[in-house]
């Protein structure tokens, strides 16, 4: 049996300014694939809007920094803080949380979002699907 895979195509999805720093744009392409495009530290990242957990709309969730717990030298807890050097998006169905630069859940190995190549060309954002 032979199968055919549709050739990947570059799709112009938006103007560069539509995705600001720490912002997002979620688009539906051809009525079938939904992609979230994020910008962090100047770079763009694109992920499928389907959570690894139960298929929720992960890219449409809250954007928030990773929470870390601080310890002193004696390993006593000093409480929690936001790590401003990170950008997470949280699936609104159940709270699965993903680093937008890796697409990975910070604490569940193997839980990650499907990635798409994304590029910024002459002021336009192009995603390869």
């Amino acid at each position, binding site marked *: 049996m032979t199968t055919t895979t549709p050739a990947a195509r570059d799709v112009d999805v938006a103007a560069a300014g539509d995705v600001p720093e720490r912002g997002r744009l979620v688009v539906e392409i*051809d009525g079938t694939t939904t992609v979230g495009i994020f910008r962090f530290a100047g770079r763009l990242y694109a992920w499928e809007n389907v959570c690894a957990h139960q298929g929720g709309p992960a890219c449409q969730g809250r954007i928030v920094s990773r929470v870390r717990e601080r310890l002193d030298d004696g390993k006593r807890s000093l409480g929690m803080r936001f790590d401003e050097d990170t950008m997470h998006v949280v699936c609104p169905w159940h709270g699965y949380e993903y680093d937008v630069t890796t697409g990975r859940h910070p604490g569940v190995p193997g839980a990650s979002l499907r990635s798409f190549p994304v590029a910024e060309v002459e002021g336009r954002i192009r995603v390869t699907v």
Partner: protein
Amino acid sequence: MSVRRLEPQEITTATDTRDILANARRDTERYGLDDYFIVDVDSHHVELDSWPEILAYLDSPVLRDTAAQMMRNWPQASHLALHNHPPGLTMQDVSGRIPHQASLGEPTPDVGSGAERDVTLVRRAMEAMSIDVQVVFPQPMLETGLHPQPEVATALLQAYNRWFTAEVLPREPRIRTMLGLPFENPDACLATIEEFADVPGVIGFLVTSQRHAGVHRNAYMPVYRELERRGLPIGFHAGPNQADTMTSTMNRFLSAHAMSFVTCNMTHMTNWVVNGIPERFPGLRTIWIESGLAWLPFMMQRLDHEYSMRQSDAPLLTRPPSHYIREMYYTSQPMEWTDDKLLAATLEAIDAENTLMYSSDWPHWDFDVPGKIAALPFVSEHGKRNILGETARKVFSLGG
């Protein structure tokens, strides 16, 4: 190629249920869920949204006046009067990360009452998840067994049951419920069964599990006998508690929720089985709700182990406890699927293809879509149909 900006870009408490759950359509298409009879045995509406309407159903003029004065005079009490809402529950939405837990604040044009609004929201969720019948329960009233004034809890349950059967059930025949029993008062339990058992849409009765009553007390035997006589199931619906002797040591909501939603039903199941309630009422169908499944292999092994050495402590039993546990019923959510082998063994241990019933627990933060059952690789097609709806059809005599 067409490109469409998706709306909303961010899902919030104002987002329409159908938009929140839009991705569930992927499962419907992938697994052909429209071809299944799907019964959701545990979902919720937010009764506090309709609280003034519910309090109007209070029987006692004195309590009605107390409620009216609270709502009028206390700045935050308009939707809390007489209630024992535990403040820790507001941690459930993980600091705004799971908005639907905090509120379904979406527009519902042209609805005239809280009940109408609830029915609209339930219909939207059913449509989005391809659910055919949805069993709907309240939310904070699941804590009613911890109310500091049991007689007020009894009155609130009566008012709620009257409101739900008069205002919600008649509007949508696909909505069913198991009504809460005022468990601190066995006579009131019997009166509740007598009043509501024949109301269309009432398919059983419920014990809210967070409470300190031993379910084996002699005073409850007439209640179990009456439910058995009428062929109506009894359900034990778990709930959270951050203030008992165990959970009060816990500093995170995760810890208290993970443990207390299970330990309340572990306690009742232990008393239920060790005191031989299944032997006394073999025709009474018993359902354990919203404790997940991972606790069950533990219970089976632990109770069997001790029973084999202490049979004289449980003289009504003729078989090991696990045999009775395997003959009771369970709702699926939250199905702890973190290890295939452990889940497969759990499903086998409880004879899931004949005892497990799908539940969403929508709109709670740990809800499950029906696709989670359809995706189970170690359950037969027949078993999936049973879990998604056919077992519930039998347990609740849904017919059709």
